């Protein structure tokens, strides 16, 4: 994909704590294209939540964000997000880019009915409440909820899956262009997670949304994403179109991550865990941060932190040995295209 029409551009974003001693986001640059769905995958502690928060300049105190976050509006003008006043930022966060976190229970006020949350949000942004509530009802119905019942319920009266869907509807009530989601389904059972993903896809198509979906669960987001980005030790290490990332990844870590995933179709004997542990923010190794765990690591890797190599169309890989990784690290699942799709449709017939 050519980078023709980015909606958000993150340039050299860095998040530091302790007066710059600790990095939790290390010089990350990435452009999100208008109307695409990007899946950002990383283990706990890889910095993926910081990536999400950085897009909205919402790093929790006392973290410091530097670099540049540009937002290109539909009318062609560009906003420098880090230059916004607190009031402008507040409007930007709901009306342009909305965010959904994991755990709806903590996002809702337990003493207020769900409908109250919608009204309050509309009023706080000087939006037309009657029009807005009509939109709320449509969004709830889009998410397979009964609008009347849900608006008239307290959050605890809804199941976890219903709460999380109501929260997604709330985040969209002011018609943002971009929805950033940080583990939005993590606390739910797998069936509800997959159902929500299917609904997100329908919403994306209906409202022409741009989505950034952040998760530790690679196969989950693979069902939704057009493009995937993998984070390791506070930095992006591979970015590629979905099928490329799954079928032809160039980074040894991505390949290990794919092979460690329990999968109904993968032969059991070949699933294996990734040896070792990812580094803590205070002792990221010099050179490539994956080198201590990497089976292909050489002296070069320990000394020179790899930049992105072009490893395919729209495919960037931060590994000196991406060619060798593709040759020597076999993927354990059948990445056979037509078979897989055929089997899939048969199941649902």
């Amino acid at each position, binding site marked *: 994909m050519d980078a023709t029409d980015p909606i958000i551009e993150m340039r050299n974003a860095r998040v530091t704590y302790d007066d710059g001693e600790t990095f939790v986001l290390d010089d990350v640059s990435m452009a999100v294209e208008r109307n695409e769905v990007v899946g950002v995958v990383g283990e706990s502690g890889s910095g993926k939540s910081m990536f999400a928060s950085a897009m909205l300049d919402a790093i929790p105190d006392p973290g410091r964000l530097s670099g540049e976050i540009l937002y290109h509006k539909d009318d062609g003008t560009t906003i420098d997000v880090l230059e916004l006043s607190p009031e402008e930022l507040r409007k930007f966060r709901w009306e342009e880019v909305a965010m959904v976190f994991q755990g709806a229970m903590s996002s809702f006020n337990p003493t207020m009915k769900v409908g109250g949350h919608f009204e309050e949000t509309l009023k706080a942004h000087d939006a037309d409440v009657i029009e807005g509530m009509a939109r709320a009802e449509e969004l709830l119905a889009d998410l397979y909820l009964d609008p009347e019942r849900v608006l008239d319920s307290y959050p605890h009266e809804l199941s976890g899956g219903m709460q999380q869907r109501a929260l997604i509807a709330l985040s969209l009530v002011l018609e943002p262009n971009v929805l950033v989601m940080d583990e939005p389904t993590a606390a739910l*059972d*797998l069936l509800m*997670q997959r159902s929500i993903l*299917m609904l997100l896809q329908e919403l994306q198509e209906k409202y022409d949304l741009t989505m950034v979906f952040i998760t530790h*669960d690679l196969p989950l987001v693979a069902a939704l994403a057009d493009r995937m980005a993998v984070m390791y030790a506070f930095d992006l290490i591979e970015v590629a179109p979905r*099928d490329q990332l*799954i079928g032809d990844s160039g980074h040894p870590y991505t390949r290990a991550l794919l092979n460690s995933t329990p*999968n*109904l179709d993968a032969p059991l004997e070949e699933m294996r865990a990734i040896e070792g542990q990812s580094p803590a923010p205070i002792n990221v190794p010099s050179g490539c941060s994956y080198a201590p765990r990497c089976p292909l690591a050489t002296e070069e890797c320990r000394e020179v932190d790899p930049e992105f190599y072009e490893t395919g169309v729209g495919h960037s890989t931060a590994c000196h040995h991406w060619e060798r990784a593709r040759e020597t690290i076999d993927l354990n699942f059948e990445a056979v295209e037509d078979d897989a799709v055929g*089997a899939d449709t048969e199941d649902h017939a």
Partner: protein
Amino acid sequence: MSQTHDTADRRRQDEEPLVSLEDVEVHFEKNQGLFDFFEEPEVVRAVDGISLDIEENDVLALVGESGCGKSTLGKTSIGLQRPTAGTVRYRGQDVWAAKDGRGDVDIPFDEIRSSLQIIHQDPGSSLNPNQRIVDILAQPIKLTHPDVGPTERRERIYSLLERVGMNPAADFADRYPHQLSGGEQQRVALARALLMNPDLILADEAISALDVSLRVEMMDLMLDLQEDFDTSFVFISHDLSNARYFAEHGNGRIGVMYLGELVEVGRAEQLIEDPGHPYTNVLRWATPDLALHADGASEPPMRKIDIPDPVDPPSGCRFHTRCPEAREACREACPALEGETGAHRTACFRNQPDHEYWDSAPLED
């Protein structure tokens, strides 16, 4: 195991399943608000009429959605939850009769409880935050082997820590739980359960909170230890691919639960490849795969996304309100779990070629 029984008793106990559930029901009264004081309390039917045997060195993976009763069934099978009807037997001994001192008690309740252990989803909250790992693990040894001295105790703890992959043990032993990662805490919880020499460990969503990339490692560890320690496992998960990995490696079964009932049970590979129940098919749909060029997330093979309220479960087959194959007959009668004990069993009329189901009208809504 106790040393107090004579050989005849022992032989009889060996012939019995390790744990046997018969027609077990667990119904909870829902908490009532102040103003509902005069109304009939609502009853949540968490588990409804389940019979199941667990043998020695057995692996049973229970799968289903949140609220399907899999956790309650798990806890009932290890004597942590008293059933409101039906019996739970450990080597032939009625667990709750032993607890209440009813009849001839062959195996005392304390012995049963220590033979049946649990590891929870959130190890952080099951480990005492104020104790070092070495002290947490010393407790079960003090209980089971009061005559073991401090030096030998420490040696045993160190070798077990190393066995669960925490090397070098000395580095971990003196830490507090919050100084460990989630995966490490779960290993400590597993080590603690193993120190009781259990016959059965209930792993209640024990890997769900771990990163996807750590789950296989944790399952491998449990399966390795299952062989070393001769333990059975009841493994609870909402993820069919994890259940499959665990059950297939452990040469065990998968049980699928829906709204308090067991709707399908069978050998892992058979159940995955040839699901007999439409709900099992839904769980298959929910399990992500890495197929290329998949056309995004497809429509689920069910009519409604949300699970009905277990306070008021649907009539007939409880899945009929969501099932894509449901017909009038499913609303009226409840299919039983057909098939021999130990075989692949399914509770669905579609497996009976001459059932009236085939002549009744499809349900639509």
